[in-house]
């Protein structure tokens, strides 16, 4: 493949990738087209193998974002075998490892995610790519959050923030930092960082805005924000996220002794969680005989709901 053709392929991947948070289908279409262009050349040069591997890595990543996890893994495995055959493009291989880490995080295999991130970081260190290392740190922090280690997540982000140049990565880093602070109970600082980040967050896509709305609801504990986020997720057919928010709202309602409101929320969330195998018994039924005047009963009910919530969060995100 000639250099100018390679540039076309790389530009195509770059453009498709830059819009990944807004349009994952376009990412898949762009990456697939780039792959077809490379395959059509039928070159046996090592550089062509690496370029094909890089395209497959992007196709795999796009499929992961679209929830096609099995196909994503197949593409990423093929990409790995192609990229590890050569050694002229370590940056391609590093990016592939990051994509693999994202896939492992999606399926909640945190050890495998960490393994992939270490491999990516080693390559970025050799390349002197501080932004690449920062991207690995942000991903690692997200893994820490899922592993219920908010303090480590926050420390990881704090160490990486000053190396970040890209707005997309900074958005992800700040959102992760705020989430870590909320999880750690540092809600005042969480809101302080949230407020200063409004301009940054405003540049995110629709789904990111929705995520931020949910985060603000969690940080402030304002049920109206959570309800709005839940409604918007429901309208998009994202029932898993809507069910998670219902659980959070129910926990707040129980804490405030609003048993009937909690039951109404659980009536909606319960079937979704049961369908995913997260709960067996009816959570709403648990609240039926709850004596709201007894503090111990309220605390016990809240603890049960928070336990379910924790389990639900770790559940693999269904296809979106």
């Amino acid at each position, binding site marked *: 493949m000639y250099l100018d053709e390679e540039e076309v392929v790389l530009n195509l991947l770059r453009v498709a990738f830059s819009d990944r948070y807004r349009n994952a289908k376009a990412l898949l279409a762009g990456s697939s087209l780039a792959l077809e262009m490379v395959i059509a050349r039928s070159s046996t040069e090592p550089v062509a193998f690496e370029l094909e591997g890089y395209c497959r890595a992007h196709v795999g990543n796009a499929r992961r974002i679209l929830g096609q996890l099995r196909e994503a893994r197949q593409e990423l495995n093929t990409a790995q075998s192609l990229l590890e055959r050569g050694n002229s493009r370590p940056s391609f291989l590093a990016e592939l490892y990051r994509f693999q880490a994202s896939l492992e995080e999606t399926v909640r295999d945190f050890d495998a995610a960490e393994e992939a991130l270490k491999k990516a970081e080693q390559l970025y260190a050799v390349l002197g790519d501080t932004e690449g290392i920062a991207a690995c740190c942000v991903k690692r922090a*997200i893994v820490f*959050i*899922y592993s219920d280690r908010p*303090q480590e997540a*926050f*420390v990881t982000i*704090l160490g990486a*923030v*000053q190396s*970040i*140049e890209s*707005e997309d990565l*900074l958005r992800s880093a*700040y959102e992760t*930092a705020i*989430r870590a*602070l*909320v*999880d*750690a*109970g*540092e*809600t*005042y*600082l*969480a*809101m*302080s*960082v*949230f*407020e*200063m*980040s*409004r*301009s*940054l967050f405003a540049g995110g896509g629709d789904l990111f805005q*929705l*995520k931020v709305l*949910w*985060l603000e609801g*969690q*940080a*402030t*504990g*304002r049920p109206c924000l959570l309800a709005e986020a839940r409604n918007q997720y429901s309208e998009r057919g994202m029932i898993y*996220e809507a069910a*998670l928010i219902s659980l*959070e709202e129910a*926990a*707040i309602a129980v*804490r405030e002794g609003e048993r009937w409101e909690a039951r109404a929320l659980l009536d909606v969330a319960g079937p979704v969680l049961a369908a995913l195998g997260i709960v067996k018994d009816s959570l709403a039924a648990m609240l039926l005989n709850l004596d709201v005047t007894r503090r111990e009963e309220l605390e016990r009910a809240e603890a049960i709901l*928070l336990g379910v*919530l*924790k389990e*639900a*969060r770790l559940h693999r995100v269904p296809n979106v």
Partner: protein
Amino acid sequence: MLSSYVTGRETPTLKTLEKLLDGLKLRLEDLAGALDEVQGHGRQRPARSISEDLVLGFPRQEVEKVFAEQLARLGLEPKRKAEESTAPQAKPRKAGKA
């Protein structure tokens, strides 16, 4: 019962007081500070301990500075620190990855 506390006919026990403060998301120190202000005692409140200014082991101000400076460096001027109205209103909860 609450009205008798308000009118001063009765005073709550420490246990009841703790429950009331819990419901208001306040601490005993907050109540003491408010009483000082209302009664004009003019006593200085004890200085905040160093640990109160630490967030997950880091100085709060330094943390805010790092985040604000990076935003400014990329031309994303930070807004002013959270106003009182946006301060947390409820007990912190665990948050999932949205």
